[in-house]
């Protein structure tokens, strides 16, 4: 009887593990495409946590539902169940298991976080040197190709024949109610669309003109609040050519939902071509949804109240 129980329990544990692993693999399809190096790390961690979580969830709710089906009292049975009050061994085991799990999950999360090396506010940057990804100011991302490191202001020399040389620069991000403006200091161009070269570590210098905003690109799995009067540095590495959405992730007032921008990740050649072409364009006022909604009579069924006037629509070299 004892051996039979052990066999049954083992079979259940194996089945649960299999199902949990399957669900863990499935998590990758719940996410947007992996368009940045960071997204691969985050997705790996998420898959791991969901695998563990699925095991616990299925184990606990399975036990509960089994009881609900098989341990019901008969209709006229008013007797009590077995008066079991506790079991010291069992209680120690189920306290120890979560403690160990917590340390395991925390350690793994810490490692992933270190590898991401996303930078936050300036004051933190100097304390914290990520081990996984070199900072954009120290070296470009394609570390496999024998790279000569460069100081933040000088351009990077790469011996990699396939990737062309991209001058290093902090792209300036300016957030306001309700628009994103990007400025490339080397060429002095401004744009409402963020263009980035693929496979290069990017560093942004972010500022807000008015309220809190949040820089968030779901396909990159990166997010950072932008706080007025503070310079926020932020780093990540796009790895997939395509067009993605940038959104404001920190509630910024009435037209919060309209504060979106395109992020275009392109080959270094296309990127340089875009920079050169845009530099020749005359600045003009960009389309701005918040400004046009504010100017128009509202079409909604229920009319609202006086709102904060949107900041001046951005004047840029390039807008979509």
């Amino acid at each position: 009887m004892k051996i039979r129980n052990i066999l049954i329990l083992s079979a259940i544990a194996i089945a649960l593990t299999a199902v949990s692993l399957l669900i863990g693999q499935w998590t990758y399809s719940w996410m947007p495409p992996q368009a940045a190096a960071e997204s691969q790390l985050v997705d790996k961690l998420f898959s791991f946590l969901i695998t563990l979580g699925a095991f616990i969830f299925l184990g606990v709710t399975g036990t509960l539902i089994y009881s609900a089906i098989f341990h019901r009292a008969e209709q006229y049975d008013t007797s009590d169940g077995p008066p079991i009050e506790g079991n010291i061994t069992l209680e120690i085991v189920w306290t120890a298991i979560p403690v160990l799990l917590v340390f395991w999950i925390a350690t793994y999360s810490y490692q992933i976080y270190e590898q991401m090396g996303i930078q936050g506010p300036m004051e933190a940057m100097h304390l914290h040197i990520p081990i996984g990804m070199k900072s954009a100011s120290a070296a470009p991302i394609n570390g496999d190709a024998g790279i000569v490191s460069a100081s933040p202001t000088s351009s990077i020399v790469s011996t990699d024949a396939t990737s062309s040389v991209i001058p290093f620069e902090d792209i300036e991000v300016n957030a306001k109610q309700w628009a994103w403006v990007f400025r490339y200091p080397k060429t002095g161009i401004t744009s409402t669309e963020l263009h980035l070269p693929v496979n290069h570590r990017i560093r942004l210098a972010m500022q807000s003109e008015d309220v809190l905003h949040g820089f968030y690109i779901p396909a990159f799995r990166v997010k950072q609040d932008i706080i007025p009067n503070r310079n926020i540095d932020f780093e990540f590495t796009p790895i997939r050519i395509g067009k993605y959405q940038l959104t404001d992730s920190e509630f910024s007032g009435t037209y919060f939902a309209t504060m979106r921008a395109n992020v275009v990740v392109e080959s270094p050649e296309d990127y340089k071509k875009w920079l050169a072409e845009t530099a020749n364009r005359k600045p003009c006022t960009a389309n701005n949804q918040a400004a046009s909604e504010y100017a128009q009579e509202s079409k909604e069924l229920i009319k609202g109240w006086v709102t904060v006037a949107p900041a001046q629509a951005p004047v840029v070299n390039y807008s979509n």
Partner: protein
Amino acid sequence: MTNISVEDITGDAPQQEPITDWKQYFSFSTDHKVIGIQYIVTAFILFLVGGIFAMIIRGELITPESDLVDRSVYNAMFTMHGTVMLFGWTFPILTGFANYLVPLMIGARDMAFPRLNAVAFWMIPIAAILLMASFFVPGGPAQAGWWSYPPVSLQNPTGNLINGEVIWLLAVAISGVSSIMGAINFVTTVVKMRAPGMTFFRMPIFVWNVFSAQIIQLFGLPVLTAGAVMLLLDLTVGTSFFDPAKGGDPVLFQHFFWFYSHPAVYVIILPVFGVFSEIFPVFARKPLFGYKIVAISSLLIAGVSGIVWVHHLYVSGTPGWMRLFFMLTTMFVSVPTGIKVFAWTATIWGGKLRFDTPMLFAFGALILFVFAGITGITLSSVPIDVHVNNTYYVVGHFHYVLYGTVTMGMFAAIYFWFPKMTGRMYYEGLGKLHFWLAFIGTNLNFFPMHPLGLQGMLRRVSSYAPEYEFWNIIASIGGFLLGVSTLPFILNMIGSWIHGEQAPKNPWRAIGLEWLVSSPPPVENFEEIPVVVGEPYGYGKSEPLVAEH
């Protein structure tokens, strides 16, 4: 009346004068039972108000475009929905149950400070009326979200001194003061007013959890209230605590706010854990497994809750070491919580289960809570939080906590103690209908928020990209179903209170001091203060709970 596990102690007629006159519920009564019911009914009315706001939000989000209400109206809706549901529903309903039950459960005649108790209650309708009045000021109600983060909350487009945000801050401060009064009262009552023999380790877990929760209120609420007052000064007289335009620090407000508002989640959920711990043993006919460790884990949760708030600020310009420290402390909450979940599972395992409505709600709520716990762990992990912070993934998670667990747990409590409070039985059929509508509605409404958040849909948006439409339609259908689910409940409660079958003093054959008195209990609870001689949850043990006299 010593042995409660004997088959029949039901059917006694009330010996003392029960509370029957409905007018007293509109009076300044100092009876903890009257105040308890005042809290519960007020909270439920506000629950309906907050629910209507939620329907408007889900109505707007059923299509990607902003086409039902103006963006400013939408912003007011989610701000007021969050505010009313937290400060108007969860806190008052839990205070209501604690008020009603704690003195009965520990063998006291009333709370330690009955007048303070009444004053604390009456501040709630005042705060609620104030909050609703903000719909009628020129700029409309507050629109900065229930977090009220500056600088958005400091922007005042109408330029009027009396605006929605000022009223909002006053209402929150009043509600905070009311809760501080309540906390002083509860802690004193539990420490000083226990019946002879009612040692700490003979207290029901519900009392343990109310006690732990109220300790959090004592250290946390003064901080929130201070933050609200500082923001009010910034907004009205031009101080610059939080205004970056004048050199203030908006992130400081976030620390003030979350230092209380995260522990507040435990203030809300601990009493619900208490309700689970009362209900499972009764409907499984087994003692609560691991009583002592469950009791102590409540205090542990209260303790750890003081050092978790920065997990709301992972992406708000927080240095790396702080992100990692608070990741560890946040994850650590899962240890005492896990202990409780395992204890309930062991209590249910091998029991003689009966699924009356209170058990159905508690059981369903426990399953939803386990799900919320899993997503909670993912959120505490910094890299994952960086991705899903401020998205619908978070909204889904905390609605599984606040609707799936807290609200469902409160319905369990209402059905369980309804016979005690009113002296009438509710209709079982309507109760079960309510459960199934609510359980299905909860999952339809809040599950889709997880895939939406992982895909990157942000919270608080009034319009969204078309690719998010499918899950939003499902969520809205679930939301409307939750709205419908309250109808059988209202019908049941009103109908049963008027026409329900007379309830015996102990319809569930439960063990506990509150089940020794008539339903509803007499004015001073006990003819003679009972002397406690036994452990709680003595199901199947036929030991006496109180001494014979």
